[in-house]
């Protein structure tokens, strides 16, 4: 199925990079919120004596507040075009993370987002548009630490 | 930033510029995160109603924090907040105006410090003082500045 020219033109749009300082307190608040007692996410002494040498982030956490490379801004720019294409309802379809390196307290991450793909599909209830938003996270050494691909479903 | 307030600028009866706030449910949730106070009285409407309140309540300590904001705004960077005290006398609800106010009650110099004591409070839309309290601040003095210079 074809998407509108307006949507096609949005593929490849990128965001301004967002800088996030990963702090121990933020990691602890996150671990509290998911009720995860793992000492790697809470106990500095334990973490420092582990193979990581410092408290690390639970998977999917990249510092507070969670900004994910300005994905919300991307969505905001996308929403009117999706509505004009006849799919105004926006649902979070899920996410796919790839982790390359551990993220430690004290790291400074730069994340940037991109509209990687927009596709249309015929569903039970009519046309559905699938948008893939890709975010990359790079640490202060310039290493790529993680990548996420979020699927936004519009109907 | 505004001009620095000095000891000589205030007299007994001088009013602190009011700070008008209207806490939202979102702000209460933000406060829960920042303060670590997760009492459901402040975000679960059913729970609040079971406790006999018409809606979720604004945290007392959030009102304390807002009074602190009024004061740090007023005394500026040259002033020092020494003491802040308040009682949570009546409930406040999100979506309603909450006005922080204050008035100078006393001023004096002690041990070279220019001390100002104030009554402070928050006011609800009916004009009731829901969070009365008092504060002690130390302000810079123009007279002293001259002496030092």
């Amino acid at each position, binding site marked *: 199925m074809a998407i509108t020219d307006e949507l096609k033109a949005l593929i490849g749009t990128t965001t301004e990079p967002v800088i996030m300082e990963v702090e121990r307190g933020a990691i602890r608040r996150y671990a509290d919120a998911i009720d995860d007692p793992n000492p790697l996410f809470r106990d500095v002494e334990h973490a420092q004596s582990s193979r990581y040498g410092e408290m690390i982030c639970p998977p999917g956490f990249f510092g507070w507040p969670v900004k994910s490379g300005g994905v919300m801004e991307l969505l905001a720019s996308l929403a009117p075009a999706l509505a004009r294409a006849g799919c105004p309802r926006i649902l979070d379809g899920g996410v796919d993370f790839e982790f390359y390196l551990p993220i430690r307290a004290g790291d400074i991450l730069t994340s940037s987002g991109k509209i990687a793909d927009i596709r249309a599909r015929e569903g039970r209830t009519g046309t559905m548009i699938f948008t893939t938003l890709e975010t990359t996270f790079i640490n202060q050494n310039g290493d790529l630490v993680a990548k996420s691909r979020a699927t936004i479903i519009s109907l | 930033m505004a001009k620095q307030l000095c000891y000589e600028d205030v007299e007994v009866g001088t009013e602190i510029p009011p700070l008008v706030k209207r806490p939202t449910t979102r702000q209460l949730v933000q406060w829960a*995160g920042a303060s670590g106070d997760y009492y459901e009285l402040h975000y679960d409407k059913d729970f609040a109603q079971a406790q006999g309140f018409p809606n979720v309540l604004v945290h007392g300590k959030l009102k304390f924090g807002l009074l602190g904001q009024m004061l740090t705004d007023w005394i500026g960077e040259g002033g020092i907040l020494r003491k802040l005290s308040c009682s949570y006398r009546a409930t406040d609800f999100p979506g309603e105006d909450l006005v922080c106010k204050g008035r100078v009650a006393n001023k004096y110099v002690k041990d070279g410090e220019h001390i100002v004591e104030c009554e402070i409070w928050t006011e609800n839309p009916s004009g009731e003082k829901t969070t009365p309290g008092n504060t002690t601040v130390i302000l810079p003095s123009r007279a002293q500045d001259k002496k030092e210079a």
Partner: protein
Amino acid sequence: MKKQLYYEDVEVGSEVIPLAKIATTEMLVKWAGATGDFNPLHYEDAFAASQGVGSPIVHGALKRAWLGHLMTDWIGEQGVLNRLSCQYRGMDYPRKMKDMATPEEGETWWCKGTVTKKYVEDDQHIVECDIWVENGKGEKTTPGTATVILPSREAKS
């Protein structure tokens, strides 16, 4: 700490040790604070009703984070989580709190998984799993997959 899991300990079909979770209104507020996601859909009754979901729903990302917890617990400190993926298929509703410490009776969610594939590639001992969050009715509201690298007893010796 628990015993370290090794590549040799798992086979296709092995179960990831299940993890029970109870979503409460309190947990949702904590999640909002910890992530900075203050969307009222997750704490304000009136707003949730206006969005057609009835009452506040559990954040999809919180369920995803539970799956992360499931995997990091299972693989232990010597294991590495390489990939985590999930879809938000069904809505979940948190339990209300009875008092400051206890949730009301109700649903318990289970994070579960099974090994679907194991292989060695570039000297790395890789295990792939299907993972999901199951609600009180046994429905998989948040299915996904994970790829992990486990230490190997053979490589060690």
